């Protein structure tokens, strides 16, 4: 297996071989293929909340918290007066 070859590959020959070594090539119309795949992607949903979503959350959330607190207070009050 380790038989000596007549002439060993030198650094420069290795470099040359590596530079020209097999590389794949883009097919014709590759850009169009990629763009067609991108166009076929489902529309991305916007993840960042907009100002009106924050407003709706606040307008709905504050009364909900108040109502929960009111319920807890009335339950405590009923229990306290026996």
């Amino acid at each position, binding site marked *: 297996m380790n038989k000596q070859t007549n002439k060993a590959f030198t650094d420069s020959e290795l470099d040359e071989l*590596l530079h020209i070594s097999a590389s794949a090539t*883009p097919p014709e119309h*590759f*850009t169009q*293929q990629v763009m067609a795949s991108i166009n076929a992607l489902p529309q*991305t949903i916007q993840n960042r909340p907009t100002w009106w979503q924050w407003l709706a959350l606040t307008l709905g959330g504050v009364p909900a918290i108040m109502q929960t607190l009111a319920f807890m207070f009335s339950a405590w009050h009923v229990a306290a007066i026996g």
Partner: protein
Amino acid sequence: MDNTILKQIKQGDKRAFSLLVDRFQKPLFSYLGKMGLSQAIAEEVAQETFIRAWQAREKFDPARAAVITWLFTIARRLAINEFQRAMHRYERVNNHQSLEEYADEASHASLSNQEQHQLLSYALSKLPVDDRSLVALAYIKEFEFSAISEIENIPVGTVKSRLYRIRQQLKTTLNGGQ
């Protein structure tokens, strides 16, 4: 690449993105081919690279990395995944047995160009996939050591020392050693 184009891409301009695909497809295919992927798999990986880049365009920060470095980082990860999947599925065709004989018995001076390329392909196939990626990047003219170190996420000194070791290993294999 022009900052205006990058800005347009970040805003979702597909026409600007197609310019990026045009500009970088050739070095990308060259890299994937040199890594040892077949033409068909290289096409799949390159296409997936550009799709992922499009999907992640808003996260790209030109102040942190060049666009080519960003693209090749995506491509490298996909290519390595592809190799690992192929190894799991035992799908890689091994036609290298006869090539060992070339390496053992022939003087490279007597080998045809095609045989030399086959022999090199055999020597590359014996490298770990990370090493193949490194050597493929090193022999694409677009890249300096600093860019390779960013893509591979290792220091420049490590790029140089690993490249030296890989070249020695390739020479040993090409000259008939193991």
